[in-house]
């Protein structure tokens, strides 16, 4: 496999080809998750969060294990999956945590602990839970919160629950789960859930 520079890849293409392992600057690493089996083959998979070129977002790099050998296969880059602010303020946070017990329609992978990508920048909080399916990575759930309002979008259940600061609460149709690779946090959110402009 050909190694390429991540900043070159991200500048020239929307996402790296899955057969190319990106070369990354290690000072740009923000968080990592591994040790969990997200494709149900009995082997651990991996996800990395890295700072974007401009420092205003995190990109996600994903790996899925090969069922026969257990070796990791690079499955792509999702640019600007989460908001970020560089350098970090003391109150800013980011991590890869784990989510579970999501709503799940027939055919989705429901029994595994899914990675939740977490970012809090100023008043904007977003956690994006991703899952691996037969057609690739998809967004399973998004939770966002800002200025006392919050929104939980459960794509696998097809619903989004919006709770505004004034206690107005309603449910909207979330639409189908978006694919991970082209997902951009700013445009990926339904308009009802865009509480804050973000960084």
């Amino acid at each position: 496999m050909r190694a390429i520079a991540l900043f070159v890849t991200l500048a020239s293409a929307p996402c790296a080809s899955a057969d190319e392992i990106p070369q990354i600057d290690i000072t740009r690493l923000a968080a990592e998750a591994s040790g969990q089996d997200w494709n149900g083959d009995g082997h651990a998979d991996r996800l990395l969060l890295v700072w974007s070129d401009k420092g205003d977002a995190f990109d996600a790099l994903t790996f899925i294990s090969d069922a026969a050998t257990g070796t990791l296969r690079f499955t792509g880059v999702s640019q600007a999956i989460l908001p970020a602010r560089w350098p970090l303020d003391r109150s800013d946070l980011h991590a890869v945590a784990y989510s579970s017990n999501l709503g799940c329609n027939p055919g989705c992978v429901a029994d595994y602990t899914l990675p939740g990508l977490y970012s809090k920048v100023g008043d904007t909080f977003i956690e994006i839970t991703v899952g691996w399916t037969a057609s690739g990575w998809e967004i399973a759930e998004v939770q966002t919160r800002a200025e006392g309002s919050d929104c939980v979008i459960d794509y696998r259940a097809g619903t989004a629950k919006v709770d505004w600061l004034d206690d107005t609460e309603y449910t909207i149709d979330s639409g189908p789960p978006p694919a991970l690779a082209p997902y951009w946090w700013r445009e990926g959110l339904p308009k009802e859930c865009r509480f804050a402009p973000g960084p």
Partner: protein
Amino acid sequence: MRRSFLAAILLAPATALADAPPVTIPADRVLGVHGKNVYSENDWNGDGHGDLAVLVLSETRDAVGLYLMTSTPETGVLAVTEYASALLPYDAARVAAGDLSYSFTISDEDYEPLIQMRSAATGLSLSLSTNPGSEAPVVFSIRTSRQVPLESGHRMDPVCEIFFVELLGNGPQTAKVHLPDGNTLDYDPGPGPRLTDWHYTDLPAPCLP
């Protein structure tokens, strides 16, 4: 003025790339990342910016290395300050089989990162502590324990307790290895070896998961 200042901040990661050659590795060699997150400030040098530790697979893919990166107080830009190339052994077949795993956790004693290596097959778990905020980090301690299942839950039996420096509740420079034959090996491990000089083969074999 304000606009140019903001631009300078947003472009800082790219600027840092231009200032010093970045240390780059293939993304599939990253095994663990320990930075500022919801669990930890991770500010070893106390400058208000998060520092960073990264576990990597060695170029030869037979060892686990550790990069320590410390922030510049004025800018928060991270620079590599330490690289230990063969901190722990790596066995690709055992990793792929789900036996071996590597991770960071946080020390209960000083909240600094602990490097962990676990074997599901043997039940052995190794923790290595260091002092990342020091200008010359050393290996502080290495502890290996074995998980023994009980009727209800489990207990952790010590296998190796090696303290290169005096830690709270332990004497200075003590090493105790519980050998497979039931005997115990006690020795003076000497002063804490520099992290960059440490090689996992320096460790008695029973200590490795």
